[in-house]
């Protein structure tokens, strides 16, 4: 049975603030309010990485939050989509080049959709999430399969050669 069609009908969102100024977070919360009401698409703000499909990240990644960001990403079960919300999350924005942050979520985790704007508008966020859903639907099971390295190391001329072990990974 093909269930991937249901992914776009019930995307559960996890929102993580990786050091944003709170501007983008408020816009995300505005999406949940009566005016935009993204729950009509079945989206819930779960706050629990183990049950969510979409990771909405706001803010430049600060040196304090980067470990947590990667950990949260790792805790989300596949299929998952990462959306960088706002100029900060996409490139570093106004915080780019500062000593405490490194600019852009994509330095640490793979990002699928970038949403621009300093203070992204709720319409843009919804648009970004809808694009993310199209990507989510296409993600296949193969992505989540763990890779087995079958090749053994070869001993040539009294030297252990491991160069070809990882060659099977595409």
């Amino acid at each position, binding site marked *: 049975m093909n269930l991937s069609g249901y992914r776009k*009908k019930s995307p559960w969102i996890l929102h993580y603030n990786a050091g944003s100024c709170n501007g983008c977070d408020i816009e995300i919360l505005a999406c949940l309010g009566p005016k935009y009401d993204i*729950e*009509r698409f079945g989206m819930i703000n779960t*706050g*629990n990485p*183990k049950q969510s499909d979409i990771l909405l990240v706001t803010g430049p990644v600060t040196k304090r939050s980067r470990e947590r960001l990667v950990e949260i990403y790792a*805790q989300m*079960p596949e*299929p998952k989509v990462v959306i960088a919300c706002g100029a900060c999350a996409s490139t570093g924005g106004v915080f780019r080049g500062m000593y405490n942050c490194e600019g852009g979520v994509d330095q640490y985790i793979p990002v699928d959709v970038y949403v621009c704007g300093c203070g992204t508008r709720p319409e843009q966020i919804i648009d970004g999430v809808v694009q993310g859903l199209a990507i989510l639907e296409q993600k296949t099971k193969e992505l989540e399969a763990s890779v087995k390295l079958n090749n053994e190391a070869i001993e040539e001329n009294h030297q252990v050669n491991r160069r070809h072990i990882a060659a099977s990974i595409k």
Partner: protein
Amino acid sequence: MTNMYISIILIIAAPLIGGLLYGFERIVKARMQRRIGPPLLQPFYDFFKLADKRKMVVHSAHAFLGIMHFISLWFALAVLLLGGDLILVIFLHLLSSALLILSAYSTRSVFSHLGANRSAISILAYEPVLIIIAVSIFMLTGSFEAGAAFSSNQPLLYKMPLAFVALLLVLPIKLKKSPFDVAEAHQEVTGGVELEFSGIFYEAVYTAKWLDYVFCYTLIFLFAGSNLLLGFALSIFTFIYLNALDNSTARVNYKQMLRFSLGVSFSLAFINLLINSLS
């Protein structure tokens, strides 16, 4: 005999009914907040989506306890719908909650432990009231069987209105609705006991929530006796009451919840029991 068939159909369809109820409730809740709300079948979409997600099992006992929670809850509901012993129903329900709490304790997550603590406290808050209500039913009908309450000609509501009020006051604790939702508290402990479940194993906990709805509304039906119309009226009233309460109140902490439940709801049920046993 037809009653029996109806109960069996109800038992088999309970997750479906519960899912529809949950979907409808989400719409009603959204409308109360002037939102449009998700489609009616949203819980089932969630269900299918979760089935397709990767399972991240913390350890096998954890997942197993989650599934046993669902099964024992379904069993409790079956005993209730077949008109079995009320005390047995209450203890089966307690067992199912205890399994979920045990599963939450078995992980190393702090939030999971917090949620388990809080769930245990909420059991402490509602379970005595339920037992007192069962005893009052025993005083009136002369048996602990739910079937006796379902088939009594005069609705129990007229004889034990205070117990019904007490039930209304503890239902939000049981269904984890707003003033008393410390056990779930999404903003504080992000779901508490269900935190560590994922994929198809979360589904068991998620569907158990639907079964809980059916369980609670069946408890409401106990009060209507054989009068089905009254039963539906009471359920609709309870539905609106629960959602209005959920939307209009803020969360209280667990001490306040315990104090309120044991102070007010328990005394109400107890006074009702006294009156019943005296008259």
